[in-house]
């Protein structure tokens, strides 16, 4: 079996400024916005070469193999699927590589599966177990997030160089345990600011070689996006509430059954779906336009209406095809995302130099996926 070398290259083999990675702080940017270079011609696109046909075949064969092996092949399937998606993404002539060790993912999966089976069954018998588990998950959340980001970054490779994630547990505790308390205390007003802080935490601890990722968007756009998203959700939910009023006072149905409630639930679900994707699309450009890799920049140009149309048609296709069109939805989503982002180098990328660090943990990766954390990076 040919497998890529999973260990990071030996730190001693290179003499760069590597040894003190964990404590190192990024150098301060020169004050003020770096001059936005007007020559857009300098920017290069992210190209996505994946096709729904290829991905469907990979997806279906690997899903079947997972089923036939009672889920053991699942980890290998996941690595193959991710490798395909990363390997289909091109920047400046080079593709991205995904080098995760399936065995580590498998171990993580097994632990999470056991954990949740135990939670579901023991929790029904002894509720304290359930509350204890939830408390444990909340307490472990910062660690899970950090580990998962680190695992993903470590296994994503560009031009033979791994991305890095500086595992700052203290920062994660602040973002994932302390700031949510602030959200509650401010009755949710702090929420958009928290999303910004969370994003900043995720982006700024990433590095590629010795280059730092930076993230400096103003908070006002977050508030605008969440306000509009909330209005959309509120508007659609209001239609549902109007429908309920109609049932209650128009048709005199005091206790509607599930079927009569169906339009209400469908509207609420749709409202959440549209609201969520509206917020994602309106923040997407904002997030990427304020993300830097040292002095290199990203330029994003996503259109909210196109993104909403894409996601709504994806949802319809997946539901109608009993999930079989899921790979198709993944491919067209990624293709559109890639077409929205351009990279604007401020100078030769070749100046970025290798640094040595520790690896991420597969358990954190799986656990974070379970909790449903998606950073959209």
């Amino acid at each position, binding site marked *: *079996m040919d497998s890529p070398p999973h260990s990071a290259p030996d730190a001693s083999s290179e003499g760069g400024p590597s040894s003190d990675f964990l404590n190192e702080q990024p150098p301060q940017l020169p004050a003020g916005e770096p001059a936005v270079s007007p020559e857009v011609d300098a920017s290069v696109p992210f190209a996505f070469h994946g096709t729904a046909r290829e991905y469907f*075949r990979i997806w279906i064969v*690997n899903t079947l193999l997972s*089923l036939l092996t009672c889920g053991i092949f699942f980890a290998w399937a996941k690595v193959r699927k991710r490798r395909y998606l990363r390997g289909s993404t091109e920047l400046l002539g080079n593709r991205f590589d995904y080098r995760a060790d399936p065995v580590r993912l498998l171990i993580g999966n097994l632990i999470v*599966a056991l954990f949740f089976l135990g939670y579901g069954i023991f929790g029904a018998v002894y509720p304290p177990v359930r509350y204890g588990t939830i408390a444990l998950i909340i307490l472990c959340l910062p660690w899970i997030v950090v580990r998962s980001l680190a695992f993903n970054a470590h296994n994503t490779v560009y031009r033979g160089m791994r991305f890095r994630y500086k595992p700052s547990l203290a920062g994660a505790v602040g973002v994932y345990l302390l700031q949510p308390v602030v959200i509650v205390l401010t009755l949710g007003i702090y929420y958009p600011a928290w999303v910004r802080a969370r994003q900043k935490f995720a982006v700024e601890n990433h590095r590629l070689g010795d280059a730092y990722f930076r993230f400096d968007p103003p908070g006002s756009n977050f508030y605008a996006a969440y306000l509009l998203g909330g209005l959309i959700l509120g508007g659609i939910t209001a239609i549902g509430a109007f429908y309920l009023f109609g049932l209650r006072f128009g048709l005199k149905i005091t206790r509607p059954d599930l079927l009569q409630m169906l339009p209400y639930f469908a509207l609420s679900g749709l409202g959440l779906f549209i609201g969520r994707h509206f917020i994602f699309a309106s923040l997407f450009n904002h997030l990427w336009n304020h993300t830097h890799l040292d002095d290199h920049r990203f330029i994003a140009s996503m259109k909210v209406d196109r993104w909403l149309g894409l996601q709504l048609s994806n949802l319809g296709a997946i539901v109608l095809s009993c999930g079989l069109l899921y790979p198709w939805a993944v491919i067209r989503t990624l293709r559109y995302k890639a077409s929205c982002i351009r990279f604007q180098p401020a100078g030769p990328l070749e100046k970025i130099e290798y640094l040595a660090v520790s690896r991420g943990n597969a358990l954190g990766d799986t656990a974070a*996926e379970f909790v449903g954390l998606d950073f959209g990076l």
Partner: protein
Amino acid sequence: MTTIQGLYSSGKWLISIPVTVVFEDDGSVRFSGEGISSQHRIEDIGISDRLAEIPRYLYLPDGATIESPDNGSIDAVLNSRRRGRLQSVIHFLETKSAIAAAATSAILLTVAGTLYFGLPGMAQKLASRVPPEIDKQVGDQALEAFRPYMDNSVATIQARRRVQTQLRRLLPGVSDVDLPRIIFCRLGTANAFALPGNNIVISMEFLNLVKHEDELAAVLAHELGHLKYRHGIQNLFRNSLALLFVATLTGDLSSLSRFGGTIPLMLVQNGYSRSFEREADRHALSAMIAAEIPPRRFSSILARMEKTNGNTFNALSHVSTHPSVEERAALFDVGDPLPEPAPGVDPPPASAANATSPRTYPATRFSSRQNTHTTQLDANGGVQPVPLALTQPVYPPELQAAGIEGEVNLSFIVEVDGSVSNPVVVSSNNEGFNASAIAAVSSWRFFPGRLRDGKPVRVRMAVPIKFTTSEPPSIRPQPEK
């Protein structure tokens, strides 16, 4: 000798240099590009697996990589070195449309088979190994949800007696301590359900719907089926396993929390719930036949519950937790047709259970003699029933607070075992007292009336119950003339 083009990255700097790689037949690998050239043994080089048409990577021993889209040539080299056989099998499977089509049908079949047979079978095996104490724990937890709705009013005394009578019919030879625990609730809908740990929850609204005690027995038989097959615990296992299974299938658990991901899971869980209902129905049918209860009683109460609760789910049987009423009634469509309601049929004492809405049982409705076979002991010269325990009725608090007094004349039967049955209101000057009066009378105990030869007989008695705010009313039941 094979030659490929690639992009070299040193791993130390973020560089990308075009190189030409030459694989010699003797196993040495040379590559050269602008300012770079090197030589390695092919055994020392890791080569990434073939995956569709995405580029391959050669992982060099010094941490450098060479990226090349020339999949065909690399495969040929690996093939000649007999490397990467296992990976090439998976790649082969991934490239053939016919295999993808076959895999699609295989997955659909496996999924259907696992969800319909595999998981339920596994859940059943697991459930049978769960000790009864765990059952009880689960049931107690579930009961907590009903605590706010529990009804402990006097009306339940009579209700409990009725339910116990039917349970003994269905479970002859089972000692009283082993009978299911009955919990009465006010839920706003006519319903009854079984909870693990031998519990049956019955809504008072349901009891009011019962027009014949056989119907009560029919529904109880269904709930006993749920208890017998431990459906509560099985359900727990099935749903947990289904969650894991669907998660394995969709590739990640996070998709379950999303809008689209929950729909399949909901459908699966509804399907399970319906299969449990069918099993409980089949148990009810055999239990009713054994207890000589006409099976059609089940259909009649089911239809009435449906009408009252206003379920319009028949058209949407797939998404409902229960199969459609027509489908269930068909199962019970055996034996003789039910007799038309006649004066000889048992009265609906159900209404006694409803203490908060006395309007539902006007006194006149019960004034005619409903039960036959009581004995007039005066004529035969026997011994009248002797009261052993006469509970005072509870003065309805709102009437007491308002200072309203009243009198309820009741008629009831003292059974041969000394218990009271069929209490009915003959006349009443305030319906608000009826429920309390009936509840009190139902709990009374007598030494049964006897014929001259000592044989106990049923005797119809009458009693006026006075509610006065001044002094406790005296109670003197008399044989009815």
